[in-house]
């Protein structure tokens, strides 16, 4: 098991390295950073000077090496639109996104999994119908639109809930729900079908042959197996959570990483872009690694190579 975790750690490290290289080279090979910092009036000498001061005259792999060293020390460079270090911006915004993502993820788990199980076990019951409705709607309605409609109804029309920005607990309700509806839908669908498949298996038949109570058959024997693909989905859905948080942050004017990323794109603020993309990517990679380890814990067959 320790070995398994070690392997995953090493893999995560290399993936991160690849991501950083990808982002760095993509940005530095295609866009000339200096051209955004200088104006046409600048003399070639001053441009060259600027190049030199930024270290842009050195070979690209050296630049990458320096970039890596800086990143490890928490230095992503200077944002030229905000006039601050990119890292300080990052530290300011990241917690907000994490809080939003976490509340969305929790919502996904506590609504999606039980609903999926209940609808598989009690087929054609009221649970099954609710589950079907949510999964059909959630898979089809765009997150931003759901957000806007919720905002229109609960915020503007009923006036019950705050419509934008960050604040008390009530500020989380609408954004985290619009963020997670899609994932809840996916989770319900997956849990339901996974559970149904497991309920068809031989060991479930054998558990019944043993004379086990139906409760034990479902909540012990079936659930533990059915949850395995659900976990994988949870891992994949983290990517979806990041996707969604950008959109939801825009809709609800949420001061998070996603909006920062979006503005850095439109403003061509490379330092911030690199910082945010790397952070988002790293979060994804680390979470995927955690899911893998959890997976191995639940399914003994996975512990071996």
């Amino acid at each position, binding site marked *: 098991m320790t070995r398994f975790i070690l392997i995953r750690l090493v893999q995560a490290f290399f993936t991160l390295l690849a991501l950083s290289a990808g982002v760095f080279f993509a940005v530095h090979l295609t866009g000339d950073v200096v051209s955004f910092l200088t104006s046409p009036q600048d003399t070639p000498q001053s441009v060259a000077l600027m190049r030199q001061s930024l270290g842009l005259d050195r070979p690209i792999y050296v630049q990458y090496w320096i970039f890596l060293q800086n990143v490890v020390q928490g230095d992503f460079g200077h944002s030229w639109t905000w006039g601050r270090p990119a890292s300080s911006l990052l530290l300011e915004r990241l917690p907000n996104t994490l809080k939003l993502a976490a509340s969305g993820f929790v919502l996904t788990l506590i609504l999606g999994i039980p609903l999926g199980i209940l609808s598989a076990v009690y087929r054609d019951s009221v649970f099954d119908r609710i589950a079907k409705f949510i999964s059909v709607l959630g898979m089809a309605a765009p997150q931003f639109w759901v957000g806007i409609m919720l905002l229109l109804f609960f915020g503007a029309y009923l006036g019950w809930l705050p419509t934008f920005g960050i604040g008390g607990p009530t500020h989380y309700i609408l954004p985290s729900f619009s963020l997670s509806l899609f994932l809840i839908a996916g989770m319900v669908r997956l849990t339901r079908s996974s559970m149904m498949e497991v309920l068809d298996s*031989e060991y479930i038949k054998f*558990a019944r042959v043993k004379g086990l109570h139906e409760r034990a058959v479902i909540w012990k024997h079936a659930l533990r197996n059915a949850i395995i693909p659900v976990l994988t989905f949870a891992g994949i859905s983290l990517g979806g959570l990041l996707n969604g948080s950008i959109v939801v942050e825009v809709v609800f004017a949420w001061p998070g990483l996603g909006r920062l990323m979006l503005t850095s794109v439109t403003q061509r603020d490379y330092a911030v872009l690199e910082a945010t993309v790397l952070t988002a990517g790293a979060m994804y990679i680390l979470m995927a690694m955690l899911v893998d380890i959890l997976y191995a814990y639940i399914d003994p067959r996975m512990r071996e190579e």
Partner: protein
Amino acid sequence: MAKIDRSGEPLLSVQDLRTYFYTRSGVVKAVDGISFDLHPGETLGIVGESGSGKSMTAWSILGLVPQPAGKIVGGKIFFKGQDLLEASPSEMRQIRGSGISMVMQDPLTSLNPVFTIGSQVIESLRMENKGPAAKLREMAAALLAKVSIPSPETRLHAYPHEMSGGMRQRVVGAIAISRSPSVLIADEPTTSLDATVQLQYLKLLKEIQETTGAAIIFITHDLGIVANMCDRVGVMYAGKFVEQADVLPLFDNPSHPYTQALMRSVPDLEVDVAHLPSIEGQPPSLDDLPPGCAFAPRCEHAFDKCDTYPDTFTIAEGHTSNCWRHSGDYSVAD
């Protein structure tokens, strides 16, 4: 082979059992009028090819016919005098495991992959034995030892995938007998095992039967297993018994043309033969059965009367066969 006392009440009595499946392509009569009695300590063999309905007979007895397509549409199943088809779900649950238990074909898939052997054995023991965990562990280890699993204490911590097929099947056996059922159904328990391991397992089943006195229903397609394990045999073809007899009369004097042809078509290890008489044609599909005798299209003796399903004819005491050849009409038609 010990003599079976058949004078008393049968332990299990199945009467005219019918289990049908309702599918889009029509009604599949998986079990269509099966009757037999099972006495304490007796081993009944149900022989048939795949799709003959022999497994579904077992699932019907256990009250676990696949839902929602499958349905028991007729018949009675008496276990110790109680009609199982009238029993409530919780009564059925009481009977499963402690009254009637089962060993299934594939030991790999019948054990839950995510729990240790120990927890799966203990789970079954706990239903009847209250006591501290340590005592249950001890009982579980003793049970594994009973089915000849070496170093049972350490095995309790193993997961199913860490054991060989033969060992897993022993674990399945241990769980099945953990609550001393009086009927054990063995559904092709050795199909996935190697020959030498199969022999070990069959010996084990016999030992279990001798020590517990359980009756066994042995479901198989292998005539060799029937010859060596069973006291009484029912030959199944397309959802029906075509012949029922004690094992010796069946092998000495097979009466139904299907039984006869089947026995002739299986090669014998003891003798050299130049040519095996084979059964021509294909086994019928259950959703498209011919009217009358299902074997008639492949039967060399078939005659006009076979268009209606034959009555049950008694060949000798305890030996019946469903074939018109045993009526007076055959010789006339011939």
